[in-house]
């Protein structure tokens, strides 16, 4: 549905992006909305929205330029900090579920440092415009997670992890991931008020698509940090789990957005042992 209402001429703006279905952006942002503040980094590739939990966890949602019907950026990189909860509310203004044939169209506009993020949403002839205050972005954490230092990598169907996560003993402060080579196995364990609970997912299970394990690893992560991944997990079709030599974990969720685009949301999580230092 094309936007018929144009308030500003897009040609002078530093960033203009148009998408026919605002829900694609909305649902992706919802998966990382565990904190109020997000950093948006716009480049020719698209938008990367980052949310952090202290210095221990970072979530990134990628809204690729290809998702948009129109995407123009004047600078190489534009970054700003924004209230993510307000952004999500604005994107949901016409309702967050598309009825067949009806979805809100979105135009995003940003004119550089200090200017607000302007959203124009249109559905059924009604138009909403929102101006959201932006602030200077602080430098995002760099977890220094590189593919060549990955020790173990698993790709599995998300329903497997969803089931395990839904049954976790919440009285345990940590969730431990033990990956072994022989036998090829992923073990998740908790230690809480009810004792120790272990769940094994064998490497040859039909739920696991890829199991590349070079050496056994065993690391624990704070349960509260892992909770932040639940929304992304609920929306995902597949999950990739990677652990590097320091025990840092990267969970990457593959999400099929409305309109069949494939989007990625990733979480970097610091192991408890690192935090104890």
């Amino acid at each position, binding site marked *: 549905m094309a936007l018929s*209402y144009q308030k500003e001429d897009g040609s002078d703006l530093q960033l203009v992006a148009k998408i026919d279905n605002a829900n694609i952006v909305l649902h992706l942002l919802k998966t990382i909305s565990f904190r109020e503040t997000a950093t948006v980094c716009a480049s020719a590739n698209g938008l990367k929205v980052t949310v952090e939990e202290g210095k221990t966890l970072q979530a990134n949602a990628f809204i690729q330029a290809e998702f948009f019907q129109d995407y123009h950026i004047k600078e190489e990189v534009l970054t700003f900090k924004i*209230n993510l909860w307000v952004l999500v509310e604005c994107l*949901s203004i016409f309702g967050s579920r598309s009825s067949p044939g009806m979805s809100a169209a979105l135009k995003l506009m940003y004119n550089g440092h200090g200017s607000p993020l302007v959203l124009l949403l249109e559905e059924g002839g009604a138009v909403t415009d929102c101006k959201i205050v932006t602030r200077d972005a602080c430098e995002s954490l760099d977890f220094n997670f590189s593919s060549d230092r990955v020790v173990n990598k698993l790709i599995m169907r998300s329903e497997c992890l969803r089931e395990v996560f839904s049954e976790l003993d919440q009285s345990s402060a940590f969730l431990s991931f033990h990956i072994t080579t022989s036998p090829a196995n992923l073990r998740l364990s908790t230690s809480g008020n009810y004792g120790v609970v272990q769940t094994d997912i064998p490497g040859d299970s039909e739920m696991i698509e890829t199991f590349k394990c070079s050496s056994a690893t065993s690391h624990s992560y704070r349960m509260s940090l892992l909770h932040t991944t639940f929304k992304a997990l609920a929306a995902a079709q597949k999950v990739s789990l990677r652990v590097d030599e320091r025990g840092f974990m990267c969970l990457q969720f593959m999400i099929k957005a409305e309109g069949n685009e494939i989007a990625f949301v990733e979480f970097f999580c610091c192991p408890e042992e690192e935090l104890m230092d």
Partner: protein
Amino acid sequence: MKFRGKIIEIGCIRQFTQLITDVSRLAKSCILRLNSNHVCLVVSDGGALGGTPGLWAELEQQHYFSEYSMEGVSEENQIFLELQTDKLAKTLSSLRSSQSTRSLKIKLTKKLSPCLTFEIELPSASGRSRLVLHDVPVSLIPRRLWAAHQEPRMSHQFDVSIYLPPIKTLRHVVDRMKTFSSRATLSGSRSGTLVVSVSNSEVAASTHFRNLTVPAWDADRNDDPETAYGTSVDIKKLSSFLQGDHNTAKVICNIVSGRLVHLFLMQEGITLQYFLPAVSAP
């Protein structure tokens, strides 16, 4: 004083109970006015004598009740009662969505004190009906206080009148805007545009509805149809009005700039008026 009425049409039962719920969202107590043609529910904002009421609902007795008889006070043959809305709404809440209620009987009774007795007839497994009775205490309002609860006479000339867009869309928008501020500004122009807007320190959001119908009686005004007249109102009260099952209703929004928003809902057998006074910035 006597009153006895029976509603048997399921749609009417649901509508009646929905109305009670709407009223209970607005205020803790309301006035029930009964005469031979109408049942009225009145909520006065702040209860000031002579003040503009917050809500006035008028139900055509013939549309709702299959049986209706009353004997009121005075030549006007009226009964004025005051009742607590939250208790009543709780009592009737199951009827809002019930598919199987057979009938709803309402009677003025005297138990230890005057009550409105609601007799709900429901089907049961045995095939015969099952009756559930609720007694809701009421207080009778003496004649000398009736003047405070008269039908509102609008003393203000409206600046603009405009039909609301589809309630469902407006409801979504207002519900999201509730998270930004406690007040929303409603602004209308005779060209058929209605704007709802909110703002706070982080965000300013406004939704524009265009090509809305404007009632014909405004036709001989001389000023520019693009001029917009707006009033800021309590967003929770506005949202409350939009919650009801009013999909088939037509609603006129009358705005007195800076003072009042008057919402006038018309549906078969019922008219409902909401008065939202202007609220100042917090």
